């Protein structure tokens, strides 16, 4: 592990209440009405992933936000833009990997998930994006027991 923290003093944001799901118009009474996948649902999956270097969730660190998630249920597409806490964050790829694994487990296989860092939020933006959306490299990463271990640790908190 890195001896020095990359971002030793992150800004912590408050965790939004989960209750906001209730504000949505309920279609509970209607058995046939489909509730489409939406940004809130995707966000619910990934908000509680722990940051690799701080004991805070991605939501608290404002790495992910509901606004930065694009969902197209019909077209089976999900796009996520996340914002590393600092420009030179070397954990960006790991964070991206965590998000990908989490969604791999949570979404039906029909979805194609694109994960990118928010434009301008990272020094080597292009490289990170390329790495995150390369199937081969993701698969290779998931073969690495050390990496998988780290990913699992990050995901543990979001799977309670």
């Amino acid at each position, binding site marked *: 592990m890195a001896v020095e923290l990359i971002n030793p003093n992150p800004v912590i944001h408050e965790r939004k209440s989960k209750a906001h799901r209730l504000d949505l118009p309920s279609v509970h009474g209607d058995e046939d009405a489909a509730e489409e996948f939406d940004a809130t649902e995707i966000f619910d999956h990934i908000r509680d992933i722990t940051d690799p270097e701080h004991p805070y969730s991605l939501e608290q660190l404002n790495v992910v936000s509901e606004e930065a998630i694009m969902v197209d249920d019909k077209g089976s597409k999900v796009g996520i833009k996340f914002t590393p806490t600092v420009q030179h964050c070397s954990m960006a790829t790991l964070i991206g990997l965590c998000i990908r694994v989490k969604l791999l487990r949570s979404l039906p*296989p029909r979805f194609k998930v694109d994960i990118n860092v928010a434009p301008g939020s990272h020094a080597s933006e292009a490289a990170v994006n390329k790495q995150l959306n390369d199937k081969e490299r993701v698969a290779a990463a998931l073969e690495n027991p050390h990496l998988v271990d780290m990913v699992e640790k990050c995901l543990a908190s979001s799977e309670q």
Partner: protein
Amino acid sequence: MADLQARVQEFVNPELPGEVHNAALTEILDAVRQERLSVPQLVGSLAEQLTTEDNGIRARACQLLAGVIKGIPDVPLQDTAIHSLAEFFASRLADFPSLRGALTGSLALLKRTPEVGALHPTDAVEIAKAVLNSVHVQSLTAVDRLLSFEVLETLIESHPSAVLALEGDFLDGLVAAIDGEKDPRCLLLAFRLVEIAPKVFVTGQSAVLAEAAEELFEVIAVYFPVSFNPPPNDTRGISREDLVVALERALAATPLFAPYSLPLFIEKLGSSLTSAKLDSLRALRACAQSYGSAIASQTGPLWTALKNELLPLSVEASSAGEVGPVPERSAEVGDAAVEALTQCVRALEGVGRGAPAVSNPLVRSVLEDPTLGDLFIAATGETSIPLTKLLNHGGQSTHSQTDPHLDESQPRPVLHQTVSQALSAAPHDSEGQARRREAVERWSGVLSAVATAGAGPCRQVAEAVMARVTSAGSVGYTGLRLLSKLAGAARTLVWTGQGDVSRGFEGGTGRELDAEEVLGGKAEALGEIFSGVVRAWQAEGGVPDGELNDLATLAVDGLEALASLPPPLSQAESNPLRQNCISVLVSVLFSPGSDPHTPNPLQQKALQALASISRGPPSKEPPGTAEPNTGVTRGEVGDSWHGARQVWAAVSERLLQGSASQGFSLQIFATLAESSGVINREVLQALERQLDRLWGAVGGSVESESEAVEVLRLLAREILPKFGSDESDQELVLHFVHALLERLATWPSPRRPNDGLLAAALGALCVAMRICTEANQAALLQKAAGGFFQALEGDGVWRSGPVLAILVALRPSVSAEAGQPRVLQGLLSLALQSSDALIADAASVALASLLKKWPAQSVRHVAAQETSLSAFHAGGASDQLDQGGGTEAEPEGRFENVSTRPYSEEANSPHETRLPATSTPSDTALRTQTLGQPFVPFGVSTPPHGQPAARMTPSPVTPASTQALPSVSPPSSAATSDYSPAIFLDSSPQSVLFDTTPVSILQPGFSPAGGLPGPSPDPPGTTAVFRAPSPGDIPPRARRVAQRLDLSRLGGAVAASNTAPRGPEPTNPPERSPQKLAGGDGSLDLESALRVVLDERLLPLLPESTTETGQKGLEAQIRGVRVLAVVGQALAMRGHKRTGDVVGALVQLLFTLGKAHGTAGGVNASSGGSGKADGRGGPGEGARNGMPRVSAATLSSFQPEAHTSRSTGESLSPSAGSPQDDQPSASYDLAGLAQLADVAAEGFGVIAGERRSSNPAESSTDLNLSKETHAQIKPLYRQRLFTMSLGPFSEAVRKAKNPEERLPLYRGLAHLLRGTPPAALAVEAEKVLLLLLESLSALAASSDVRAPRPASDAPLVLSDLLTLTSFLTDGGPAREHASEHVPSIVRTLVRLTAYGLSASVRETALQALVAAADLPFTRVYPLRNEVHKAILGALDDPKRAVRKEAVRCRRVWTALGSSKK
């Protein structure tokens, strides 16, 4: 003796093990107790060891002596002995090896009481000196230190004079002993020493204490705040809390500590640790309480320190208009600070007593705090109302305030303008406003904390705040918040009686504090301000939001608090302040302009305020009398509290004028009635008046009808249940019932009240009735029965509704009296045949209620035992028969007369009396006559059939014959139950058709025989249902009652109206014959009653084959099954064995229907025609034969006498003659069958007490069996029911050939499971589980196939699924059984994850899968692929909740794989 010597040697020998020592000591102690050995003797024998040079032996010897003294605290000792012992131990205290013995011995001596020879004071002084001088406590072991402290404690508590004699030395010694102590046990004692020692000196030499106070304080102050973490394996059981409390007490021991302790607390308050702050505040509170005015010197610093906790710096800053984040503050600390402040103020109340000008210094510090001034300066920017307007206005209308209408009607242009200007000028700086309000909140908390400390501080605060408001010239949020909080504080002060400190001084009379005392002269002004603000709000149009609304909300709070203050003595009667407050609140309540249908929040708040005023102070134990149960309840407090009546007086008038919308006024009624029991009566009366008003219009307008329903519901739910059995309550309830009955009775004939109204009325009636006492119930039953039957001829059966409601509510004893055979028949007919669904429902519940409360013992036996009952069960009947002629008939004899005679006759000539299926109505009536009424000699014009009966029946009018009867037939025999009247009750509805009976047959027989006037409707064979008040009264009245109650007539009428046109009716008054039906006195035991209900009426209705369904009429069968279910519930509740019959019959029905369904799929039912063509051969018999064999066996055990009744039933069976028979059709009505099956399945839910279906059409009445309606419910009845039903169910399932056939059974089972507690299910898990799994798959699969009712199975699937889940999560045997069936469980669940009809089912299935993953790994693991496949589908479920569960489930099942691989 020698033996004892040996023991002594053993004990003294330090080499020997502990057990030997203990044994020796025990034996020596025994010897001393038995006086075989005296203490001097012991000392003598120990002489050598006590003085030896050997330390070990000397120590043991000393311990022996001490041990013996300690062991005999109750054995008297001589003074000389005690003296020498004391001297000895005191000297040994200096001898280190003997120390423990010496301490133990000293302690034992010090503890001795005078009765057995106590220590002389001089000896105590010697010991005290020795302990203080020779024992260096802190160098000892913990055990010895503890002993030393105990010695000191005993000295202080038992020998204070010895302590005083030592003066300062004792305190010095104490300090030295405690100094540096670390052991928690010792510390607890040490704190206690410091706590109690000063008390000795305060009464003796306080100067000495004053000198030593600082040192004494210092020695314990070092422990503050306590920091203590018990070791992990601590066994001493001392917690930090114990230490904290002990230390607090020690610190609060004497006011002399004040100069040292207060600075300490103030310093520790500055700590950043929350626990330190809390401890300081707590200690401060405790100390303030005990120090009293000693804290006066510290008020300045004290306030500064407390202020930091109460008003954090940034709040102060923001109150001055600056903006900064409000720091997080622990609520706990805040609360503690408030309490501490209150206590400090209270402690200082004594200061300056006798000199009124000198006020409480701490209050002064608070009020003169500059930030309070800043708060008001900062508040100038907010919306405010000029004070002059408010007060001037108030001043003008002091006299007019009693009339709020006037105020509303007058617009106030000046005020209006001012407020609008202010509103527009108000800065819309929401953040600044929020901060300012935060500061106001904190400050109002501080001021109310100060104000609750006592009447003096409260007045002071009131004056100061009013002065501020006055000088500001206007009142806005800040001022109003402070004022309303102040009023609230004043109320708290008065209610909690905390003003006692000042009361003692002012020489109060023990009366509570009043408004004058707590608020000075400001109460009036406060009231005016609050009222003025409310008026301003009203003048603005009562806007439900905005700043003015905030102000009005505060004002309502204030008014509520003010109105709750007791008035000064001079105004105790009128209490103008409260009157004003209430009238203002009432005017808010009825504010015009607001939406009439949805009251705005302020109106709601005003309502709550009024409720609180009418509720009054919380009940409290009167001080001094510490009796635990003085019976002081809210109601009694309320009686002396006039608030409720005042509020009611103000509200009721306007309510009745209809000033509020209907819904809201009902809410007002309900809230006020809930708040105080005092006005229950008034509320009831007011609601009745309202009902009256509505009822007038009920026929016409739908609206008023729905309002009447609301009123009735409110009465039934909220108001009536509060009434009790005392006389005045009963009177009102009676009045209500009478009025309601009257209203229903006078309902205009042509149409029936609609369902909602009738149901509500019946519900209210039932609730009112169940409150009535037995006597009243009986009387009301009579009244209801009387009124309704007279009107019956012209009108519909709905008029029987009230009687039904009353029957449901009867208390068991009254119910027993009402439980007449004819009543049963009547109810059955109603329930089965009435075309009015609501009435049919009510009738079935009434029937069930009767059966539920039916005395288990035959009434006949009761009659024999209890004269009171017999007087009216049998005797009453016979009395009237005898028409005052002669003697009391013996009940037994009378009964036999009724029951056995006709039977024997019957047996002789069955073909003459028994009617074939082709019987005509007249025949039937005649037979009825013959069987039920053997006393009537109507031989004059009877047709041939009747002759034998007439011939053989003796005339009842002659007393001789009644007396002779008992000798003719033995009084009781084993056969009686078989021959009981039930058998002779007609089992077919048609036979109740007395209406069609030709008059000529009956009429002539009546008049002469009964000795009654010809047209009199009173028949001879009636039954007295009610206790008659006086014997002379009995015959006519009882006759009437019985006649009125004769529901069978009603049933007959129903049948008539349903089946045939009422031709002969007008010429044939129905009062004629049917009474005879039931036999004479109606004493029918439970078994017979059930035989009537079940065997003769209900069970035969059930078809044994689908052919029969067609024949008998689906409609009737559905009805029958419904009634059967309700009756089944009654039986199950009382734990009756015949519950089994009901269950069996229903299971059988389900089985039959299932078979029909299974075979019917498309093929026309041609085969069904012949099989049961001879089906009329015994309805019951058939039912039994049709049962699967094993279940029949199971059930037959419940019913030993089934055969007898059955054979009789067969010969009787008239049902085949029913008109429905004419229908030749044997084709299946599939939808109808399905409905029947559903009803039967739901029946299990009803029996198991499952909530009845929410479908309003189905359970339209609010009537049900419950504890409230006096139905005693046997504990665990659901469990029993379930265990009983399981066998038949599994048997039937086994018999059915395929899943399709089993479907109805599964539905029934699901209903049953739904009503059964999980614990009972778990016990039977083994059997249930397989059934459950099959039924799940079957039900889930069925929904795809069967179109007509796709969704109706979903709730059943869900409830089954929940049961299965509970098995999986259960820790006990259920889970073990589950683990044996893992594959089928998991596969069933997997299938259910795709259940299309209900998302909840899918979700629950996934949850169950999660639970299933915990089952034994080796069985679960192979299934993971199937599960994963299912989850993949579920991940894309249309419902979010399901997807979420799927994610969770997937994780669990993935983990299952990875961790074990």
